[in-house]
């Protein structure tokens, strides 16, 4: 059963100024105390998520809205498992496709073909699984013989097409998206939308962060409002 549950998730980003991060100050603090100590131990934290709790179940299409810095991306990364909450707990069940940075792991010096395996490895796919999808990815991204050329030679549109094709090549139970993905020229974009739509429809849970209310209304059945790291509303639409 696919599900995401969070209980009182708190995420603090420590801001290590030039002061507290250096060992020198720790040593000085230990040795001197007093006036310097106040300076050195001053640790500023930014509370990115503040006591967020929710339950997402199968069929949920959740849109996360909030102003810049409200914690949308952080929440996605917490669900993806990259950040562990400082306190509280998060639990996910099901295969997650985190489409937060679709080019992560790609190397411009490697060929398109090599990059398929590189990117897929970061996505948690095994070479055996990837091998069956190479021709499909190549066809979809319309790269043709460019697939054997270093990605460095690609136009930015071409490398995005490749990244998109790889990142969307496998079905997942949970899809996390930071803004709706959209790549390529108009013709490709249409094709890409169909593919993404199909992937999203197959997924059991979608979590989409965006500031585009219309996009959220079109694609989601629940909406979560974040403000300054706090969840101020979670409603059905």
């Amino acid at each position, binding site marked *: 059963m696919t599900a995401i549950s969070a209980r009182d998730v708190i995420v603090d980003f420590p801001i290590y100024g030039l002061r507290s991060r250096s060992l020198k100050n720790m040593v000085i603090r230990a040795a001197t105390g007093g006036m310097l100590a106040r300076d050195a131990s001053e640790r500023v934290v930014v509370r990115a998520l503040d006591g967020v709790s929710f339950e997402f179940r199968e069929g949920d299409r959740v849109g996360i809205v909030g102003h810049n810095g409200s914690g949308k991306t952080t929440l996605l990364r917490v669900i*993806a498992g*990259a950040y562990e909450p400082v306190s509280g707990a998060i639990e996910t069940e099901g295969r997650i496709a985190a489409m*937060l940075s679709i080019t992560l792991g790609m190397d411009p010096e490697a060929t398109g073909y090599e990059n398929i395996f*590189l990117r897929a*490895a970061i996505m948690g796919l095994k070479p055996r699984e990837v091998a069956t999808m190479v021709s499909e990815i190549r066809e979809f991204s319309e790269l043709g013989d460019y697939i054997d050329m270093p990605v460095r030679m690609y136009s930015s549109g071409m490398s995005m097409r490749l990244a998109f094709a790889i990142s969307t090549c496998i079905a997942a139970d949970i899809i996390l998206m930071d803004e709706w993905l959209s790549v390529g020229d108009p013709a490709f974009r249409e094709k890409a939308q169909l593919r993404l739509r199909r992937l999203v429809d197959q997924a059991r849970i979608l979590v989409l962060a965006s500031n585009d209310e219309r996009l959220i209304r079109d694609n989601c059945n629940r909406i979560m409002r974040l403000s300054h790291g706090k969840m101020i509303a979670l409603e059905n639409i």
Partner: protein
Amino acid sequence: MLSAPPSRFRLALRDLKDGIRSIHVWPTLGWLEIKQRYRRSMLGPFWLTISTGFMIAIMGPLYGKMFGQPVSSYFLYLAISFVVWILVSGLINDSCTAFIQAESYIKQTKLPLTVYVLRTVWKNFLIFAHNLAIVVLVLVYFQPRMDWHLALVPLAVLTIFVNGIWSGILLGLICARFRDIPPVVSSLVQVAFFLTPIFWTPSMLGRHQWAADLNPLFHYMEIVRRPLMGQDPSLLSWGVVLAITFSGFALMLALFQRFRGRIAYWV
């Protein structure tokens, strides 16, 4: 429905286990790093072999003369020592950046953190494998006495590999938090290069040979070097290395289980 979360210790062990098991990730990433360095060069990673070989070919006769050593045995000694040192020092230096370097991965994916450590360990082993060609060449040329002791070489190399794991996690974690540590470590490694018997042998110290024994890195060199030189294995060296390996893992686990979840915030 949230069940009781597994203990931090269990999570740390799981990270290690899953990381080691991700054999479709870390060897690829490690090899990629070497390929990146030599992209578009004709000889590619064999430049590693060539530059090490060049160094040894020049330094061998020079230092041999300086120390008044017989050429063949000194050359053999230096070649092996130098290649092993590149492995050991490379592992220590790269340990510091294991997590820092993987920042973009760590912040966006859920791969076990051990993967990034294994990637740097693997990279250093690939460099070692390239340099091994020099050792083989020198062995074939000088033909020292070789016997069953040679079987200890793979075991010793594997031991160093395993040590790379704990040092990578431990130093990687500390260096991610305290950015002053990497330069400290690299200058210590630089000093260790001269302090460790690589160019010189402990016997040159005369009655002060014990000084070499105090250096833990000396023992790491010895477990690989002795069997290749046709010498009997040193129980002391193996003892020291194994003791460091176990205590290193214990220390690493103590810190890793405590701070594993913080690394994403530090890098």
